[in-house]
C-alpha cells in the first residue's frame, strides 16, 4: 500500500496487529517450571510468580475498579485463588492469562458489590454517535514523551477511570492484556460483536479524553 498523498499527519501505513500490540516483554520460559514447583507445594516458586505479576495485576485491579483499596483486595484474592486452584491449571494457556481471568472475576465482583445497579456489561451500547469527531487535533510524533513517567501515569489513570466500566474492562483485556476478542468475550460472557463494539467505543473515548493532554497546541 502506498502512503496517502499530501498527508500532513503521519498515519502509519497498513497498521497490523503486531504494530499496535508490542510483544509482552519478560521471561516466560521458566514460568512453567515455577508453576510446576508451586503445584508441588513450593511456596517460594509461587512467590516468584507473585513478584513477576503483582504490578500488572494491581494495575488491572485499578483500571477495572478505579479504586486503590479494591485493587489491593483484587490482587490479594486473585493470587490466593490462583494458588488454591493451581491443581486445576491445565497449562492450555499461559499462567499469566489464567491469572488475569481470575483477577477479572474478582474485580467484577468488587464492582458489582460497590455499585450493584450500575454495572451491567451486557446493556445495549448506543451506536451512530458522531461525537467521536469532536476534539480532532494533531498530537505530534511522540506525545507521551512530553511528560514525566509519574505525570503520564496520572494522565492515563485519570482518563481510563472516566470511562464507563463496561468500556474500560474491554479495553483493559483487549489492548492492555492483549487477549483476543474471543477470549475477552468468553471471560466477560459477552458476544464477540459486543466486545468489538465496546472496544471501538473505548478506544475512541479514550482518544478523546487524552486529547486535552496530548494535542500539539497544548505545548506548542
Amino acid at each position, binding site marked *: 500500500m502506498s502512503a496517502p498523498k499530501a498527508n500532513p499527519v503521519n498515519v*502509519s501505513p497498513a497498521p497490523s496487529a503486531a504494530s499496535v500490540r508490542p510483544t509482552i516483554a519478560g521471561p516466560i520460559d521458566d514460568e512453567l517450571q515455577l508453576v510446576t514447583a508451586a503445584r508441588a507445594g513450593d511456596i517460594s516458586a509461587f512467590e516468584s510468580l507473585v513478584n513477576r505479576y503483582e504490578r500488572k495485576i494491581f494495575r488491572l485491579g485499578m483500571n477495572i475498579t478505579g479504586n486503590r483499596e479494591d485493587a489491593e483486595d483484587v490482587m490479594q484474592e486473585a493470587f490466593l485463588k490462583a494458588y488454591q486452584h493451581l491443581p486445576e491449571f491445565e497449562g492450555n494457556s499461559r499462567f499469566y492469562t489464567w491469572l488475569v481471568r481470575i483477577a477479572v472475576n474478582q474485580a467484577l465482583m468488587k464492582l458489582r458489590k460497590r455499585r450493584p445497579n450500575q454495572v451491567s456489561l451486557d446493556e445495549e451500547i448506543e451506536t451512530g454517535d458522531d461525537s467521536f469527531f469532536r476534539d480532532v487535533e494533531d498530537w505530534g510524533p511522540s506525545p507521551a514523551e512530553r511528560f514525566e513517567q509519574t505525570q503520564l501515569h496520572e494522565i492515563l489513570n485519570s482518563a481510563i477511570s472516566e470511562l464507563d466500566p463496561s468500556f474500560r474492562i474491554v479495553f483493559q483485556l483487549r489492548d*492492555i492484556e492483549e487477549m483476543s476478542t474471543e477470549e475477552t468475550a468468553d471471560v466477560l460472557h459477552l458476544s464477540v460483536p459486543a466486545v468489538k463494539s465496546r472496544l*471501538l467505543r473505548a478506544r475512541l473515548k479514550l482518544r478523546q479524553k*487524552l486529547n486535552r493532554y496530548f494535542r500539539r497546541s497544548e505545548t506548542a
Partner: protein
Amino acid sequence: MKCTNMIEELSGYLDGALSPELRVELEEHLSKCKRCRIVVDTCKKTIDIYCNAEAVPLPEDTRSRLHSALREKLQHQRRA
C-alpha cells in the same frame, strides 16, 4: 466511504483485521480526509501509549501487606 463508515471500521483497521478490499477503500478515504487521518493516528497512539506504559511499582506498604497475607494464608493452607 463516509467518515461515519470509517469510524465503524476503525478497530478492524488498527488490528489489521479488515479484508484487503475494505482496507483499500478505507485508505482511499484517509488520503482525502484529514480529520479521519487524525482520528486514526491519535487512536493508534492512544493504544500504543497504554500498551507501552509500564505498570508502576507497587507502593511498599501495599506490597508488604500482599506478601505477608499470602505467606500466612499459603502456609496455613499447606499445613491443613
